[in-house]
């Protein structure tokens, strides 16, 4: 909402600078987003008092040999008049006329001052004297655009004295006449009452203590009565509680007075013509949107349903399959929950939202039926959303305009039409108001105010703050609640909590004390999931991986890249209104996100070590809500180490399966979990991994699967655009954190530091190629109980010496007894026992 201060000043005395006013309003919830200055000090284009001034046009003469130029003689308060050459089309009608009685004024700019040059992209340009047709021109009469006031460059500003403008005299600095400051206020939904100059004036009055001066709305009605010519009925008073109509006849269409155009321009509305301008002006001033119908058109329609009977306006819900072409020339399909203004011949406009094209005033319109109505806000919001139409009227009605404003707006608009469009107002007002809005009164408990605000105000102080906002407060006593009556322009007060806000706002949020929470501290529960997840992230970052965070919205196609074969896509949580076609469903896979991140970085980065911890949203067919699961996904690819000048480039030194396995082991180990790996079942087309190079991550003990890891199939990697050099695979892992976090032991148990020395023994075993290393290790540990406390594989060997189909696994064994130093015969005995047992259990024999 753009609020020109001169306009605001009609309703409230303004003290202090615009900046102070802006701060006051901002703190009270009317956030001033910008302060725009026009012509005054601090404006981008100032109007120096001695160079830009009001000038009276005395005479308009032709310029010899120049059809498109005229010579205007102006009085600008100097000893002599001045002649100005101009091409302004709106001066031509005055050629060779005696302007003595016209009282016609323009904005004169003398050489040395600057203006916005419409022929140079509105660049601020200094005016220099020049010669035109032999006449020296060192001044100009300005258009609105040249003064930085608007877009209009159709002609120069021509204005007449009016009550709304300061007294005109030749040479009066223009900044005093048209200069202004505009506050651009962000109107939040609960202060829709401030989407008007009057509404803002009320707030200013309450905040500064100045008097609010409501507009006088006299009405001169001297036309033939409206009674018997227009009737109004409302079928749905709950949606259209009030409908006010006035008839203004014999108007002459033309430009609205300059002061009105000027104010509309400053408020961001383009002047169009007197009837439309007045309608907009009243909406901006009072906050009451209103609508004008061509009465003669309505009259003609009436003849079709009741020959020479009254025009019968009815508001009703739209019929099934009803259509209406609105004034933006769009044919709209209506729904039966939308309220329409109609007559028996059909609908005329979408109530409170947009007029219909066929009943709209046209250039020939001379008689106008003026509507100012009240509409239920939710219904208007719904209609706007359904039709995809957002108008200034709809904006205000959907946020709530009190029915009391309808009569005020109608009177103001009618009187302006009489004054500035030359109409006569028919005697009488049709005011259909079947269910007057009830007076709202709230019992306001001062204890509640204290309890909620922390402010200790007396009843009298509280009442005074509320009265400044026009609330009625019965004689305040400090015992018992205050009886507070809500003023009839407000719809936002439902209970005493709303009054607390009003008191705090007017008292000033900045004056409310700041205190430390002294309330009961709730039981401290902590968040176990969060802290373990943090530990996972920290471990991965410590291991040299970078965390990424991806869009949780994706497409089924993007996730299908994980699989080699086309399959029926799984069910997704799908958006009904996606903003972009690559973000339409909630992801089911975190790995796809991280592979995408890896691919986008692979353009400028060889070494990729990324992870993400976040949610996935698998959903069952038919379920509305997904099961949200926390996952971790990890991707490694490229050189293990960063490059360094000293190290020779070793192309073989790339991340491989065992790097990824080590990362996963470390993460789980740091959570205190024992973990096992099993070769993944014959890789199906449903996993992104290469057959024979992937593993299932199992939690020790029950062997619960909690993740997968492995080499990404090169074709899958290529689907994502990842094509690393030969010998450098893409490794990936996915962990189901929800399951993992359930299994984390409650606390770490520390083992005593050994007292007796350990003995190390090396042992090389030959086993069948198909025997997994893990089972050999398990067999060793089992056979060596209880003295064998650690086993470390240090070599894997294959070759002729061993024989085809076999491999040698060499281990360091650590032996220790808790209560004595081991002797040679102990270790020899144990070695024999181990060898015997592993031969039986895994078919291992000693490599001599």
């Amino acid at each position, binding site marked *: 909402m753009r609020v020109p201060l001169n306009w605001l000043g009609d309703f409230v005395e303004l003290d202090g600078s615009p900046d102070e006013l802006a701060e006051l309003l901002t703190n*009270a*919830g009317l*956030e001033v*987003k*910008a302060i725009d200055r026009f012509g005054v000090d601090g404006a981008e284009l100032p109007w120096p008092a001695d160079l830009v001034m009001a000038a009276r046009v005395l005479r308009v003469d032709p310029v010899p040999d120049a059809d498109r130029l005229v010579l205007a003689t102006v009085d600008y308060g100097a000893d002599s008049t001045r002649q100005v050459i101009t091409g302004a089309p709106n001066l031509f009608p005055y050629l060779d006329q005696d302007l003595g009685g016209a009282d016609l004024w323009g904005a004169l700019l003398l050489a040395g001052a600057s203006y916005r040059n419409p022929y140079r992209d509105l660049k601020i340009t200094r005016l220099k004297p020049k010669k035109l047709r032999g006449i020296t021109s060192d001044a100009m009469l300005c258009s609105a655009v040249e003064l930085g006031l608007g877009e209009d460059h159709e002609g120069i500003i021509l204005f007449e004295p009016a009550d709304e403008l300061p007294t005109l005299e030749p040479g009066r600095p223009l900044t005093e006449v048209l200069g202004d400051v505009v506050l651009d206020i962000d109107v*939040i*939904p*609960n202060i829709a009452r401030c989407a008007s100059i009057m509404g803002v004036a009320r707030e200013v009055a309450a905040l500064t203590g100045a008097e609010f001066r409501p507009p006088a709305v006299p009405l001169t009605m001297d036309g033939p009565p409206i009674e018997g010519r227009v009737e109004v009925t409302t079928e749905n008073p709950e949606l259209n509680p009030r409908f006010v109509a006035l008839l203004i006849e014999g108007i002459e269409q033309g430009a609205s007075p300059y002061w009105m155009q000027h104010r509309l321009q400053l408020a961001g509305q383009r002047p169009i013509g007197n009837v439309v301008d007045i309608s907009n002006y009243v909406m901006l001033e009072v906050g009451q949107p209103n609508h004008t119908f061509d009465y003669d058109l309505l009259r003609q329609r009436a003849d079709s349903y009741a020959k020479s009977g009254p025009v019968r306006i009815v508001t009703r819900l739209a019929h099934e399959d009803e259509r209406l072409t609105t004034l933006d020339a769009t044919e709209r399909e209506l729904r039966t929950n939308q309220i329409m203004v109609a007559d028996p011949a059909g609908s005329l406009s979408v109530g409170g939202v947009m007029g219909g094209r066929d009943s709209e005033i046209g250039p020939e319109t001379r008689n106008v039926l003026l509507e100012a109505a009240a509409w239920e*806000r*939710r*219904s208007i*919001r*719904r209609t706007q*959303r359904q039709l995809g139409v957002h108008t200034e009227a709809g904006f205000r009605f*959907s946020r*709530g305009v009190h029915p009391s404003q309808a009569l005020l707006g109608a009177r103001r608009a009618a009187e302006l039409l009489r004054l500035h469009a030359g109409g006569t107002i028919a005697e009488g007002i049709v005011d259909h108001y079947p269910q007057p809005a009830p007076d709202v009164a709230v019992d306001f408990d001062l204890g509640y105010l204290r309890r*909620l*605000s*922390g402010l200790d105000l007396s009843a009298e102080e509280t009442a005074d703050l509320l009265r400044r906002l026009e609330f009625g407060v019965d004689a305040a006593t400090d015992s018992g609640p205050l009886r507070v009556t809500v003023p009839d322009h407000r719809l936002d007060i439902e*209970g005493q909590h709303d009054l*607390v*806000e009003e008191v*705090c*706002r007017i008292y000033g*949020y*900045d004056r409310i004390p*700041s*205190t*430390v*929470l*002294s*309330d*009961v501290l*709730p039981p*401290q*529960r*902590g*968040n176990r999931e*969060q802290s373990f997840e943090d530990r996972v*992230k920290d471990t991965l*970052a410590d291991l*040299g991986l*970078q*965390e990424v*965070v*991806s*869009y*949780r*919205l994706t497409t089924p196609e993007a996730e299908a890249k994980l699989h080699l074969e086309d399959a029926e896509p799984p069910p997704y949580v*799908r*958006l*009904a209104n996606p*903003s*972009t076609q690559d973000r339409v469903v909630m992801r089911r896979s975190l790995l796809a996100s991280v592979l995408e*991140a890896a691919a986008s*970085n692979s353009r400028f980065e060889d070494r990729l*070590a990324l992870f993400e911890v976040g949610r996935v949203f698998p959903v069952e067919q038919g379920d509305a*809500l997904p099961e949200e699961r926390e996952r971790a996904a990890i991707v490694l690819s490229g050189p293990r180490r960063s490059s*360094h*000048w000293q190290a020779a480039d070793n192309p073989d030194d790339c991340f491989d399966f065992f790097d990824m396995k080590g990362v996963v082991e470390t993460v789980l180990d740091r959570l205190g979990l024992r973990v096992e790996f099993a070769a993944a079942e014959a890789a199906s087309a449903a996993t992104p991994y290469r057959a024979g190079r992937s593993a299932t991550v199992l939690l020790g003990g029950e062997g619960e699967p909690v993740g997968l890891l492995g080499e990404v199939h090169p074709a899958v990697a290529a689907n994502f655009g990842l094509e690393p050099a030969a010998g450098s695979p893409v490794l990936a892992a996915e962990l189901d954190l929800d399951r993992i976090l359930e299994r984390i032991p409650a606390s770490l148990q520390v083992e005593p530091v050994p007292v007796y020395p350990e003995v190390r023994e090396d042992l090389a075993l030959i086993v069948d190629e198909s025997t997994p290393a893990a089972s050999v290790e398990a067999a060793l540990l089992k056979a060596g109980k209880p003295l064998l406390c650690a086993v470390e594989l240090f070599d894997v060997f294959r070759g002729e010496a061993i024989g085809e189909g076999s491999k040698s696994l060499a281990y360091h064994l650590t032996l220790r007894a808790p209560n004595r130093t081991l002797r040679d015969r102990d270790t020899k005995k144990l070695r024999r026992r181990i060898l015997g047992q592993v031969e039986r259990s895994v078919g291992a024999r000693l490599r001599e």
Partner: protein
Amino acid sequence: MIDQLDDIEARVSAALNATADLDALEEWRRATIGRKGEVQLLTRRMGEIDPADRPAFGKRINEIKISLQAAFEARQEALTRAAHDAEADAESLDVTLPGRRPVLGGLHPSTLVMRRIERIFGDMGFQTYRSPDVVTDQLNFGDLNMPPDHPARDMQDTFYTTDPSVVLRTHTSGGQILAMQEQHPAPVRVILPGMCYRNEQITSRSEIQFHQIEGLAVGPAITFADLKGTLTEFARRLFGHGRGARFRASYFPFTEPSAEMDIACFLCDGKGCQLCKETGWLEILGCGMVHPTVLRNGGYDPEKWSGFAFGMGPERIAMLRHGIRDIRYFWSNDLRFLRQFQRFV
């Protein structure tokens, strides 16, 4: 004979001083003070000396031996040091060559900022509570005092799913209801971090997803003054102790009274600049006293309980704090952006 001793000493000393390296020194030692060296052998010539002079002769030889031994050691130390110096010269490093740095990982800026915020509130007794991203319309709006066609719904462009009763949460505020319902009838002090979604054009200033951290305190005697005190303290800890903060009236359907907290602009310290759009203030969070309807929906009687709630965007805070000009950086996962946060302090 004794007289010759002086000459011998002078000669041998001169030879010692002439040794150029440790090998020559060893050679000298062997030839002079070594077991079969010239000086050692002098003792054997005692027989040639007049018995009366023998004590003097012996004494003199001893003096020479001691003096030469000391001179030898000094020479040895000097030559060893010279040798080391020479060696060091040959092996000296260009210390300006780059060091070998271990590859570091790092956390995403959103994680870093959220952790910092969570820690500050954690110190004040606010614990983390997590709630789902995909929720019912009722939880996201209805329970928060925003029935269908409430004008406040215009403040947020919502992503609806193909099930009309299910939306992607537009704020973490719905989690307030879940936290209250779960912790009722105990007092509540939680913060609710999470990803939120809005149907916007993706531009440098707006994104379709962003994190939010919501906070909620409910108790028997919580006031607006407590809200101001708590959030002012938070702003001091996050932005530095001298940083001014202000509260101004605002509107959220789920709080009443509602406020917006601004802090003095970091860039211009409140004088007005491009970052703060000439206002001198940066909007940091929205807050207010929990609306009675919301308290009731959470299971708390608004006649006996009160509370405050607040919400902020960690990405916005990170952008302001670190001069990030484009919000799209956050989910673009470009390592050239993310790695800079290894220096986050």
